[in-house]
């Protein structure tokens, strides 16, 4: 395995006195999709929040590109290129699709780069281009998810942290969203993916971790885990 771009080492996080992560180790190799699976409350979202600095790691270390980012505030972690697309998408109500996208490139100083990225996003998501002047919060669920992804791309992420991108979407859109995630990865973005749809997640991921009670319960190549019926059964929820 090549040198990981993101390395989470023995991380423990708390919400008040409740321990959410009990020594989590995750390695994200550049150019890969790493899936984080597990049942509700296993600590998947907390893992992403701890990486992006929204939750402080009380114990352990997080390295990005060889640099210790454990104690950095969230906005600085984002500026380094670790971009969190939180659950619930956080589309800005009352602002147009274009303005929502502009938020993504706020910290990009060069206007030429901003324009180029906007053009890229519109090319990738033609529906966003069509609706660029509409209120972002009035888009459908699937379109909002594209907007959230597009906004993250405007930032020029080196690692995308995706929290349940398929949440609340119709089955057809779930498949489509996963395809988009795969395409983003093929275009060069490294992705750490939290996803409830285990089958689809394992289909597009290279490697996967299974969390249980804040600990890594199982891990392995996605293709190998997909073969393991017990895992698919346990976390399929169906």
């Amino acid at each position: 395995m090549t040198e990981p771009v993101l390395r989470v080492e023995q991380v423990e996080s708390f919400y008040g006195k409740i321990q959410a992560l009990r020594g989590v180790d995750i390695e994200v190799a550049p150019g890969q999709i790493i899936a984080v699976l597990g049942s509700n409350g296993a600590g998947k979202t907390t893992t992403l929040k701890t990486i992006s600095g929204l939750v402080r790691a009380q114990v352990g270390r997080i390295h990005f590109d060889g640099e210790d980012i454990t104690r950095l505030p969230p906005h600085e972690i984002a500026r380094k290129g670790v971009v969190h697309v939180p659950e619930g998408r956080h589309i800005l109500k009352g602002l147009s699709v274009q303005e929502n996208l502009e938020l993504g490139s706020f910290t990009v100083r060069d206007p030429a780069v901003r324009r180029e990225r906007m053009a890229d996003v519109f090319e990738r998501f033609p529906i966003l281009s069509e609706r660029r002047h509409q209120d972002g919060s009035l888009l459908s669920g699937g379109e909002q998810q594209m907007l959230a992804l597009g906004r993250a791309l405007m930032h020029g992420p080196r690692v995308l942290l995706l929290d349940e991108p398929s949440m609340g979407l119709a089955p057809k859109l779930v498949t489509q969203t996963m395809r988009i995630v795969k395409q983003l990865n093929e275009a060069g973005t490294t992705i750490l993916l939290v996803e409830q749809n285990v089958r689809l997640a394992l289909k597009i991921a290279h490697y996967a971790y299974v969390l249980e009670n804040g600990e890594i319960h199982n891990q392995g190549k996605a293709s190998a885990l997909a073969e393991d019926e017990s895992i698919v059964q346990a976390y399929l929820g169906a």
Partner: protein
Amino acid sequence: MSTATGRTAGLVDRLYATFDSPRRQMLLMVAIVVVMAVLPLVMGRYATTIMTNALLYVVLALGLNIVVGYAGLLDLGYAAFFAVGAYSIGILTVQFDWNFWLAIPPALVAACLAGVIIGGPTLRLRSDYLAIVTLGFGEIVRFSARNLEITGRASGLSNIPEPSFFGYVINSYVDFYYVFLLLAVMAVIASHRLYHSRLGRAWLYVRHDEDAAEAMGINRVRVKLAAYVTGSVFGAIGGIFFSVNLGAISPESFSFEQSVLILMAVILGGMGKIPGVILGAFIIILGPELLRELGELRLLLFAVVMLLIMLLRPSGIWPERRH
């Protein structure tokens, strides 16, 4: 009733739509300033003084609008910043015999400090807690002024010298009218430029969703602090000239009611929108004056009108509209 309301609202909306283009707004503003500039020539002393007061409130309301309207932070103690400006001038000119103009920079520094002091500890608070803390801050400033020797305790400071400008002593009510007209114009221009600045965009994003803003690399602490400090500077500038206009200041000029009045101007006119806030400031000052003949009833009537406006146009008379 409902159709009548609908029709008026429609008319009002159309009127505002007409003046919603930047060029027309610019023309409207220039026209208003020209009219305002000739007003003292036709108005009596009383009316001019009232208009001066209204212009002061334009400055204060535009300042609070940066905190509340642009950055979306509630502030129930805005009069504290107004007080810091006024008392800085009062203390330095009366107690230490400083020249008025030399006292302005330290007054502005004090205002920035006050902005950081109120901003710093409150930045992690959500709106309802923020309301309580800012309210407390306003009261702390007023109580300090009432109890400290240097601020003249309850009776305040008097005999604040009139400033002179290259030998010309600014002392008549007409002089001060023009001073405040100039300040109001400057406040409008500054507000406009801030709104369209990078910082203005950051305020917009933080106001809408601070988590999303932070996730995209915006330092929310710094952005919010900037809002408090900028708002504080506006308030202090209002206070600085308020103190020399009256020549005397006392703690009761900076009460909670004062903060509420300024906040009312912002909310009434339409948070975030400059013409709306200006309108709001004029309404809260001129409203009670125009209704003066009604005697005791005027405040009641004024309150009812305010309630009606809030019910019929909940986002203000001239709300922010984005395309």
